[in-house]
């Protein structure tokens, strides 16, 4: 007989650890991390100006996104592959995909300009409607000017000097072709107010005016990012932030006590084993299966001017003309409607949790309490509630977190008349196309949720824990 070896490690937990860790990382931590990064990192807000029009050249200065700049000149840097014209060959890998995507074919054209003078100069290939080449697959040799009169320039580049103007539909000879990436020589100011000049690819810049001596433009977006608290600061300074926060908190304060009280009473009712209480369970659970937006729409249709409520009141002869419940002037009524809808929608989830908790409370404890003289209220107070603590904790955490995310119901009932945090995140993402601000709001909701979860976990500890 061999004695059991001491200290032999049990590997089973580690096997279990692996999938759960993977799951956490894949579906939870990684996306969340990405979102949070968005709130603190401005991607493409800084444009690097370089000494020479090439990607590897030394940086002479940095200009912030949307800063005004003066465009001093441009240069078409040839890109090896004519990507846009033949389209059949792959872009060479050395310049990278970015360069290839910004590459633009230009034609060298000859012909007669509007003043009937012979000219030679460059236009973007898109200006020219090419004629069929003489040999199949051969280079284009002729074409005509597309759609309207065009400027012909001395060099490939949108701000190169104009050598001629050519009228619409003029036939021209295509004497050459070059695929280039346009770089601008830019003059602008850094954050610290210093004036700097340097080269930057055209795709980062927007040209505003080409007339006059100076060509002006602004930085459309940058080519590098930075860690910043700008979005957070902007969120706190946002006009809608305080109202959204207050409404969210107000809804929690109004909804949660009602919900827990109702859910508790409903759960006790179900536990009392009255006849037909399974029917109750089904009825109470209907809202669980309804999406929050649908619930919002249902309640919206109750409260609209021609809604159920008005027609009911009118039918009963209580009012003569329909009342407008949901308008910006009657904020309190909107809140009431949202509270009603949320209570209707989400009380059953609390109830289900409490019911399952109640089922885990052995009958004998309640019997003992009753036998030793506890009234219904005393049984609830001294036996049921303490034994339900774990379930209540779960329900509270779940409900509060969900309440911070309240969105569909508010959107459906109040529209823009009332705003909550999740609503703001949505608005920034969809209306203003600003994922950073949306991430900032989402992060704020996450933070609030985590704080409340920790608060609940610490404050509603079981007594055993508290005594240790």
């Amino acid at each position: 007989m061999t004695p059991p070896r001491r200290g032999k490690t049990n590997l089973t937990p580690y096997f279990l650890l692996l999938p759960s860790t993977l799951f956490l990382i894949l579906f939870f931590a990684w996306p969340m991390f990405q979102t949070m990064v968005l709130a603190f990192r401005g991607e493409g807000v800084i444009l690097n100006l370089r000494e020479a029009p090439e990607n590897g050249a030394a940086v002479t200065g940095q200009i912030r996104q949307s800063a005004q700049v003066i465009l001093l000149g441009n240069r078409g840097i040839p890109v090896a592959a004519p990507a846009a014209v033949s389209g059949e060959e792959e872009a060479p890998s050395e310049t990278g995909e970015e360069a290839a995507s910004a590459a633009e074919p230009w034609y060298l054209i000859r012909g007669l300009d509007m003043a009937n003078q012979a000219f030679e100069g460059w236009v973007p290939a898109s200006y020219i409607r090419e004629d069929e080449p003489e040999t199949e697959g051969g280079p284009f040799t002729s074409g005509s000017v597309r759609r309207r009169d065009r400027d012909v320039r001395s060099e490939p580049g949108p701000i190169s000097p104009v050598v001629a103007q050519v009228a619409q539909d003029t036939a021209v000879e295509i004497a050459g072709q070059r695929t280039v990436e346009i770089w601008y020589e830019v003059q602008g100011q850094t954050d610290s107010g210093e004036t700097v000049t340097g080269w930057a690819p055209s795709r980062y810049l927007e040209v505003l005016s080409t007339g006059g001596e100076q060509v002006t433009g602004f930085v459309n977006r940058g080519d590098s990012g930075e860690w910043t608290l700008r979005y957070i600061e902007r969120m706190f300074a946002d006009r809608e932030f305080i109202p959204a926060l207050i409404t969210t908190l107000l809804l929690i304060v109004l909804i949660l006590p009602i919900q827990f009280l109702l859910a508790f009473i409903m759960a006790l009712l179900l536990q009392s084993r009255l006849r037909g209480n399974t029917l109750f369970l089904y009825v109470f659970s209907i809202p669980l299966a309804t999406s929050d937006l649908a619930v919002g729409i249902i309640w919206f249709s109750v409260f609209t001017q021609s809604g159920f409520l008005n027609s009911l009141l009118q039918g009963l002869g209580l009012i003569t003309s329909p009342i407008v419940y949901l308008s910006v002037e009657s904020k309190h009524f909107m809140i009431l409607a949202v509270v009603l809808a949320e209570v209707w929608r989400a009380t059953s989830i609390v109830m289900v949790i409490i019911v399952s908790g109640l089922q885990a409370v052995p009958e004998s404890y309640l019997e003992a309490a009753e036998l030793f003289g506890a009234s219904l209220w005393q049984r609830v107070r001294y036996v049921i509630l303490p034994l339900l603590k774990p379930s209540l904790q779960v329900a509270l955490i779940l409900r509060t977190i969900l309440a911070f995310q309240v969105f569909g119901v508010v959107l459906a009932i109040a529209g823009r008349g009332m705003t909550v945090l999740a609503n703001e995140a949505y608005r920034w993402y969809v209306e203003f196309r600003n994922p950073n601000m949306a991430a900032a709001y989402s992060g704020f909701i996450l933070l609030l949720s985590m704080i409340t979860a920790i608060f609940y976990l610490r404050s509603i500890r079981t007594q055993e824990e508290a005594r240790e």
Partner: protein
Amino acid sequence: MAEIRIENVFKYFGKVTAVNNVSLTVHDQEFVVLLGPSGCGKTTLLRAVAGLGLPDSGRISIGNREVTYLPPRERSISMVFQNYAIFPHMTVYDNVAFGLKMRKADKAEIDRNVRRAAEMLHIEEMLERFPSQMSGGQRQRVAVARAIAIKTDVLLMDEPLSNLDALLRLEMRAELKRLLADLHTTTIYVTHDQIEALSMGDRIAVMRNGEILQCDAPTTVYDQPANKFIGGFIGNPPMNFLLGQVQRHNGSLHVQVGDYALKPAPIYDSELKRYDGQQVVVGIRAENMEAMSQPAEDALQVRVMVVEPLGSQTLLTIKIHEDIIKLATHPDFPAVPDQDIWVRFPAEKIRLMDPQSGKTLLSS
């Protein structure tokens, strides 16, 4: 005055009749033990008295007040649950104090009563612990302490000492008995343990299959069991049973066991007439037979099969006719296996029973 009257109580669980037409009166301040095998309905009856499982029919009254359908809290009762049912989220102190708190007793009174009860059950060291930090026996003592911390007319105990070790049980038994005498409560006490039943009860109610078979003083139940079941259930070793034939010799009836003729006590005479020529069961307790190493008048010669010395007595297993029985002798009695001894059956200690129903042949 808190007399408990249980009248014709029935309780069904589906097809099971857990309590079958039970009538029992427990007098004021009396201590009645419910004794019976597992599943015979002891707990169910006790719960009906407590108001936790209402009877399907019948009447229960406590102290001249009908309580059959009253909730427990209106009955002035206290109870020790078989599964303890002490609250896991409360300390021992709070558990014991629970009944007093519900009665809104003042702090000093609560404290006094809790400490008194805890001391009695030797758990005063554990008042700050939680039930999860205690052993089964300790929890059971908390349950008992909780029940005796409040003063009620009726105390119901469902196997309150079942989980204690033998020594502690012995001590607790005596202490409980003394305490209950002091408290003047009327008590129904459920147990499996016949020693507990015999030693504690003023009366013992023996239950089987939901029925009360006999309710008498412990000595009566022991010496004069109402039927074969009780004789076999109570006593260690259980009562011996021999099959005999009623025969008439010289005008008087006696019971023939093998070639040995038993002369029963005169109280059986009237009933025995009806069994003339039929079989009866002869019941006799091991310690009621007289064993002798010499032949004697009226003594039956038997052979010893097994000898079991138990300290205070020696058990001999012997064979009489077809039946194997146990016989208790003084430890000094010289006996070895395969030895012949002589046994005498004192007429007044013999119980005669019907072989079919098991009922004692006494017209009561």
